[in-house]
């Protein structure tokens, strides 16, 4: 039995500890916001937070999350009003939208660690998440917007 705090709630999971966290979330826990893009840690669509740090859930076994805290896009905010989510809406960031949960989770970890990131810091942090629709420039603008004092107050 593996104990994981998932989106703030303690869960007991009777699952094979080798199961990648991605599939635990999507198939066992009904949380399909975290996406499968490659299964090899190359695209970042599966990014979640493990104790606040961004990880590729496709390459993270459930055992690595034992006794720790996992946050998914569904748990980023209770009402979809995290400053990044609001900024993403104002800047109309998503197009197909498939990579965006991974983008937002990566950005959320960035600004939690670096509240006012520079362009270079954004680029370094965000280059691990592929966007086939090329929304990169709008992502950067949205991160700046969310990180600004007005943006943080929602």
């Amino acid at each position: 039995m593996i104990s994981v705090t998932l989106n703030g709630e303690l869960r007991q999971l009777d699952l094979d500890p080798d199961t990648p966290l991605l599939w635990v979330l999507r198939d066992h826990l009904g949380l399909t916001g975290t996406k499968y893009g490659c299964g090899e840690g190359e695209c970042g669509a599966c990014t979640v937070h493990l104790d606040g740090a961004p990880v590729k859930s496709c390459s993270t076994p459930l055992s690595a999350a034992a006794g720790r805290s996992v946050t998914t896009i569904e748990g980023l905010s209770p009402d979809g009003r995290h400053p990044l989510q609001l900024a993403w809406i104002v800047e109309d960031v998503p197009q197909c939208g498939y990579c965006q949960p991974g983008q937002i989770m990566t950005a959320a970890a960035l600004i939690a660690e670096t509240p006012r990131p520079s362009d270079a810091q954004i680029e370094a942090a965000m280059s691990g998440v592929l966007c086939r629709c090329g929304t990169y420039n709008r992502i950067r603008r949205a991160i700046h917007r969310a990180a600004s004092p007005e943006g943080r107050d929602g």
Partner: protein
Amino acid sequence: MAERCPDGHLSRRAFLRLGALAGGGLALAIGLPAVAATPTPDAPDAPDTKSPEVDCSPNAWIHLHGDGRIRLILARTETGQGVMTALPMLVAEELEVGLDQLLVELAPADPAFVNRLLGEQVTAEATSVRDAWTTLREAGATLRLLLVRAAAESWGVPESDCRAQRGRVLSADGSRSLGYGELAAAAARLPLPAQVPLKASPAWTLIGTQQRRLDTPDKVTGRACFGLDVRLPGMLFASVERGDLLGGRIRGWQSAAARRVPGVVDVVALESGVAVVAETSWAALRGRRALAVECRSDLGRAGDSERLGARFRAALGGRAAVAEREGDVSAMLDAAAHQLESVYAVSFAAHACMEPMNCTADVTPTRCVIHVPTQAQQGVLETARRITRLPAERIAVHTTFAGGAYGRRREQDFVAEAVELSRRLRRPVQVFWTREDDLTHDYYRPMTLHRLRGGLDAEGRVSAWYQRIVGPSILARVQPSAMKDGIDRLLVQGAVASPYDLPCRRVEYRRADIAVPTGWWHGGGYVHNVFAGECFLDELAALAAADPLDFRRRLLAAQPRHLRLLDLLAEQSGWNQPPAAGLARGVACVTAFDSLLALVAEVALDGAEVRVRRLVCALDCGQVVNPGNAQAVVEADLAFGLSAALGGAVTIEQGRIRQRGFAALPLLRANEMPEVVIHLVGGDVAPGGLSGLGVAPVAPAIANALHALTGQRVRSLPIRVGEVAPGASGGAG
């Protein structure tokens, strides 16, 4: 039937049908007129003015319920291109409602939802807005008129004393008002008007304004349902092992080990491979790895990029079908003061949608329900009919959001797998492809080879232009009836119907079918042909000692819209000012889908690494529906074109695709995204298509900039600095 021509115009107006809904509502359907007499081009079809008390709701586009809900049935797939917002804007504008007052649902598969430009219900080739532009506005205007009329009648006042605003009809002094829902039943009984005037553009409050996309809130919370997110009660997951050989067939496999994996329910042999079916995705993947398949292919030496290249080179001479011809090119080339010949090569490319292929099917003996991110709802319906033998009315097709599409989701291979598995297992089944499956079992952008010849007269003007395109035919597989005189329009797009003044020209197509599966591609044949054509145009400009942009201007002297665009681009890109040290500029243009786009790329070289610093773009797509989304779509296409220009090539060796994951097939990342500046030129003409337009000019603009930087010509795609060009012979350059 309406003209089927994604690069042309509609020649028939749609007609409307009105019916009552239970509960005091009404439904408005849009249909094609029945083909009676031969229509003349100038006689519009009379709309059906009868309004039978028929429930036409199954294929209606707009449902207005007695409780005031307005449901707009969206007949096109939201793939990221913004149709889910643009099309409702057209209805809302004329209907006098806010976007927030519309409930948008994706349409089922039904002939009523045909895309008249393409002849079936499909979202592709930048046609959605062009197809809907007049139709949806007319539908909205008609509905508004009927509602106003119903209110006026109930109040006993002239219609002109009433106005519609945000879903209500108000009397002149505003003292009385009725909501659309309250008026629906009465409106449903009114005869349809013969003609409904549409708003003139100065009266628009929505069209042409920046509107936030309707799908964004769900996409930033993870609530948006893509194909892979579909969950049905009792659903199983299936992963199909197809072997790693192109054209391969599975000859043997070990199912015992697969069946022992906890969660695996069955191992089923399909046409395309062996499916491991399980309670969870992970169990299906684990089971599949235990299959130990033996795969064989007859492809042999036909599955090898190098050998295909040699075959294509041999096809640069000899017979070919003529796609376009005017004047005597051979004679003019012989007589030219200067002439030039070059060969351009375009490799295979993979679609690489962010969401890999998938389909969910639930088949019983009496009905079939499919949930799928598809571009081709009618195709899905036909696939399901073929496999289940159920009639169309027993088959439901639900379209989900699509994580990218690019033409790949017009295909039916993943649909057939899901329907067949569900039919056999009598359980709902989701077939999901891995990234490796998706990259190695694609219908690739075809490889093509281009031979271009050009002649200049003594004044440096183009006196002759010749292009031969060698490549497989896509239409021969997907729509053979659309082949005309041996020409595949998808392969010659962007080479024919050039806006440039080329009075003596010849475009040939030499069909070279190959065993590698090829298919529709984002940006279509424009990607190949504009690469070759715009690069060669620069070569001719250099031969004429002319500035490339000026050279194009001279060839566009009779095209005012193009001239305006180039002038704007020259000004905004600083073309006539020297670039910063180490930077060079290249220009390329595309005319497609009734739109024009011109692009300047600013490029630097970092060793052998090409760095694109900035892309400056001028776009004339006629009337823009949603300017913010237009910019986003163009930026997306520029990024897509960058990946295609500088990113991974797909190569095939001994029947195997070499690039099986993103590590081997790099796509553009955030740290490689240039600054993008897009200038929209407004237009008082109907909207042109946008999706895919910006892909084609990226590679040639970069190639042309690289020449300015290095003096070397790039003649292959993807671009590799320092590689030997496939061939240039005859003439300077």
